[in-house]
């Protein structure tokens, strides 16, 4: 049976990739008037990366063939 943790991994991986992608786009093409506070910290880049890494770990660790 596919583990719940694999589904968690898929969720984190996809969301992390989307957020990292959006953050990277803004890093190279920043908006003229950022609508969020602390924009210069580029939180979506590093937080997206954290989620992506966690997602990859869960997907690999709890892949259906391994469990």
């Amino acid at each position, binding site marked *: *049976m596919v583990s*719940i943790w694999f*589904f*968690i991994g898929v969720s984190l991986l996809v969301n992390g990739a989307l*957020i990292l992608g*959006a953050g990277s786009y*803004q890093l190279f093409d920043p908006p003229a008037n950022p609508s969020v506070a602390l924009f210069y910290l580029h939180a979506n880049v590093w937080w997206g990366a954290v989620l992506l890494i966690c997602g990859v770990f869960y997907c690999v660790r709890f892949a259906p063939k391994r469990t």
Partner: protein
Amino acid sequence: MRPLVGTHAAARLVHLSAVDVVIVVFYFALVLSIGWYLKGRAKTGEDFFMAGREMTAWVAGLSFLSANLGALELMGWAGSAYQYGIMATNAYWIGAIPAMLFLALVMMPFYYISKTHSVPGYLKLRFGEPSRALSAVCFAFMTVLMSGVNMFAMAKVMQIVLGWDINFSIWVSSLTVAIYVTLGGLRSAIFNEVLQFFLIWAGSLLIPILGLYEAGGWGNLKVLIAHRVSEQYVHIWAGVGSFSNNPMGINWVGVVFGLGAVISMGYWTTDFLVVQRILSAKDIRSAEMAPIIGAAFKMMVPVIVILPGLLGLAVLPEKLVPESIAASVGAHSYNDVLPLMLARYCGPGLLGLGITALIAGFMSGMAGNVSAFTTVWTYDIYHPLINSKGSDQHYVSMGRWTTVVGVLISVGTAYLVMQFASIMDYVQALFSFFIAPLFGTVVLGMLWKRTTGPAGFWGLLCGTLCSIGMWAWVKVDPSALRYVALSPHAKGLAQDYFQALWSCLVCVLVTVGVSLATKPMPDSELTGLVYGLTKVPEVGHVPLHQKPLFWAAVVSVAFVALNLIFW
């Protein structure tokens, strides 16, 4: 529970970009996929209603916590933190941790060993059919109404936050919940609750991280709050010596005995919605560990709920106001603080994840209530009172159809609440009438073998009627709160705490009195149901770190330490 949404229309708080919409759509696709995948593993009654009783401690524990961690609660308590300060943390610490540990170490063995399908099922085994029928009818009624309230609240929040049409939100969310719970049963609901847990942390944790950075750290945050509002807002216990010394208008008796000893015990140990998740554990050790795991993470939830509310006090440029006047003065209400903080810090992608976390919270709340309703209806009302000779497949089929009907009733309730907003308050009050006396009944049943069948019924009934009576009295004459809460300085929340305390006390006194006046039950009928007549399997020679008692002690030490740190 505080009212969350009013009836006013307001400009939307946030605007979703394309990537945000993709994230939201992906969530819906994932939960439906999980439900579809699990339909093949929901063929028997045990699978559909109890997830096969094969959940690990971690899955059962996170699900147990998430079943309570709905968006209604997240936004409501963040708003309470903005309104009352750090005292709102009591809902997550003294209002949960002792009860969860009590459930794990004292009550769970009796629930698990009795092999009951539900809390009303335990009452039937212990006290007989009348107690089961009373609790099952009350519980079934409450859960399906709460599901509808959740549904309406979500639709209203999505309208305010995103500008979505209310009908769209109601029907999309209810159809999604109906599909994945009908297909996969409790296992599907549990899987999605664990998913929700991760989404909530992934979507919300950035707010306190960036907020503390902006505020200059915790120490500076306290200074800002003290300057902007009051120093009372940054103390949990220092001001509860009297009603007038703290923003909540409550004293320590209400907090410790009303909230800590009765309301939280009643909810965390007898509300079938959360207990059902523990009953699905694979063995008794997992069933004992699951609430302890839940308690450990529950202690951390203030980071993503209370802290954003406090940060809102310090960093938001506008002042938030009570829900009742927000529309008339053109301001945002306390309950908007979490979406406002999301909008403040979360750009494209992050915002979508935060909104998804809120949607997931609402939908898990609906799914949890619907799955609990389905189980109570099928096993505690339909099976004993209508058709006791059906096959297992018949009851599974009944469960699937009940899920659909339950969702439709919830939709009807949501539309009813839309017309009559005060119904929401009544539904929430209904829940509070029942849960505190139920705790008294269940705990006496588990710990005192002299408690008799008639006593279980009459104690529960009298405690519930007492709670209704006090609520109606204060509703008709608000000044009566001074008698219920024993002080002229008591405010709204004090009513909840003291009403619970008195109703539980009445339940206990009536139960004891009727027990002493009626014939004791023979030991043969109580085996496996009550302390002293239940053989709890020994954990055996396992390392210390594998014993539930050890981890309960660790959580207890952390609980005490946190309360001292934030005194």
